């Protein structure tokens, strides 16, 4: 079991003919993900790697190949449009890897998705990887392992670092989910935690936050009220100066809020251990998790 994906996940890749889209589509297929179609306007009729049909529109991919999930690699200027196209065509899960999508575009996208009951992961995220089930996005398959731990993070490579340590310690994962570093994202910590809490295969989980916003604080309150599974957290950006964007558009301490210290306090108050260093995450999890 995993969250958000299963064996029936049938993927259309938007931007399959681009350099990154093509490379990562091959990686997804190599992992066993059912990539049933690609979409690049103007490239309809071609075949990706001589087997995956490419269409001009997502609707054709849904109608002809039964795609129900989209993974998006299109450039920032077209990303919001691509998300809405996937939603309108009937995809129920859309994963947008693209970094640099203008924020007001995402403001327009969100109600469109809500009206159609579509889950978005991202943008500006590595996507998700459910070991043994499917890989949607760019998380490296080489570092994951099947097992009982859920992982949700706002980061990319920091996520890989933690997954790597979990795997090295023999702790496999149900799903590794990167929700993205932008201020407006489709799936937030709360959504992920609700899903992990409801997933019988997930016995414990790790939440990796960073400075900016108050998503970690909200997650802490939810966990305190509803979650009995062991949870460990880590917050990046304690040394970040205020008012400076630390790479991710959403990683900024503004008006004195969104600091790492505030987030740690909220998590600790909710009884969630916050690891001081990435390497402390696995020991912290083991110490509270009686298997």
């Amino acid at each position, binding site marked *: 079991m995993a969250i958000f994906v299963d064996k029936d996940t049938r993927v259309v890749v938007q931007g399959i003919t681009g350099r990154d889209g093509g*490379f*990562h589509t091959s*990686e997804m297929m190599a992992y066993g993900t059912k990539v049933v179609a690609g979409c690049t306007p103007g490239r309809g009729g071609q075949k990706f790697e001589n087997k995956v049909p490419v269409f001009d529109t997502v609707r054709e991919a849904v109608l002809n190949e039964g795609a129900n999930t989209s993974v998006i690699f299109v450039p*920032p*200027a077209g990303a919001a449009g691509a998300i809405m196209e996937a939603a309108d065509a009937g995809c129920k899960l859309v994963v947008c890897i693209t970094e*640099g*999508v*203008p*924020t*007001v575009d*995402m*403001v*327009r996208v*969100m*109600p469109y998705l809500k009206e159609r009951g579509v889950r978005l992961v991202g943008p500006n995220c590595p996507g998700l990887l459910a070991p043994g089930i499917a890989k949607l996005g*760019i*998380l*490296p398959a*080489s*570092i994951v392992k099947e097992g009982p731990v859920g992982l949700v*993070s*706002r*980061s*990319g*490579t*920091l996520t*890989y*670092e933690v997954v*790597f340590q979990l795997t090295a310690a023999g702790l496999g994962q149900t799903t590794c989910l990167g929700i993205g*570093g932008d*201020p*407006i994202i489709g799936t937030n910590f709360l959504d992920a935690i609700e899903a992990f809490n409801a997933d019988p295969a997930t016995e414990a989980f790790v939440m*990796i936050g*960073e*400075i900016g*916003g*108050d*998503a970690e604080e909200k997650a802490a309150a939810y966990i305190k009220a509803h979650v009995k599974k062991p949870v460990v957290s*880590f917050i*990046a*950006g*304690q*040394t*970040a*100066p205020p008012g*400076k*964007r*630390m*790479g*991710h*558009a*959403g*990683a900024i301490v503004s*008006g*004195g809020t969104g600091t*790492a210290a505030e987030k740690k306090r909220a998590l600790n108050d909710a009884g969630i251990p916050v690891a*001081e*260093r*990435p*390497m402390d995450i696995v020991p912290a999890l083991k110490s509270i998790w009686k298997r």
Partner: protein
Amino acid sequence: MNIHEYQAKEIFARHGLPVPPGEVATTVGEAVALAGKFGLPVMVKSQVLTGGRGKAGGVKFCKTIDDVKENASNILGMDIKGHIVRRVLVTPALDIASEFYIGMLIDRTSQRVLLMCSAEGGMEIEQVAKDKPEAILKLAIDPRYGLLDHEALELGLKMCPGEVKKARQMANAMQKLYTVFLAADASLAEINPFIFTPDGVGHAIDGKVSFDDNAMYRHADYEALRDLEAEDPAERQAREANLSFVKLEGNVGCLVNGAGLAMATMDLVKYYGGQPANFLDIGGSSNPEKVVNALRIILQDKAVKVILFNIFGGITRCDDVANGIIKATEMMTIDVPIVVRLTGTNEAEGRALLSKTKLHPAETMDEAVQKAIALAG
């Protein structure tokens, strides 16, 4: 990206907001000439990209030409929170009967543009939010319909109870500010304060606009608005080289792939008693040119005593990254030690390549950070 008050007001005026006339001066003589043009009394206002200008003495009321001379000469060259004043805005001084705050920003919770207004005009909204949160009225604007007439009027009437004429002017200003927000791809737009003169006419006498960096590609005209003198030179070079970089005060230069890992690396340097010199995300590329650019920018800072690479090879292969680093270090002379941590795909091959060089290899983040701090001395 932040712009100056005078630039924000130009954008406001283009969208029909009631902005008083005004022009910038870079010398006392120009300021005096502008005061003559607009007529006394005038305000002389420092143009720096930081708040608290008034408190620092950077905004002055001038009744006479002598006042203009004195204040302009005091303000030009003034240091306000590390920002040197190079320009002043000269604008007619208006009689203020009442003042208000109108602002908009991206709200992560509602995932909409959030309109905020308050009768506590002229104060920093963060302060009002702390001291008197009930004084701020908020409305998350539905992007499907925009800011509707009745929504804006209701807020205007709450700001100016019983004064429909004033409420209408405020409502109008709110709707125009929303137009500005969308058209400019703003991340923040504020009128602070929006004032009424004794004759009941509203004016946007100060303003602030920040642009969404993600949307710069569709506003070619914004580059001309950038104040290059106000930007840290290293941060400017990084921006031009497409690197995500923030300058800090320490001596451990950090090059990391990925923003989250870069932040965690800085934190770890601090944890072990060191001080990071910068935040830098070199991205997923193993391109030697990118590494060279990054090294050049970091090494300009003479405080930097050691370079720390922290690379998690996921999709990027560690041997590719190692080759990139080796090539880059061969292309320039570097007289500080370099610690390289490579983990992930093909890490053994990557480390084998490094072992033939003078670079200091490390296996884990913790080992790398401790080595770097020791080498920094």
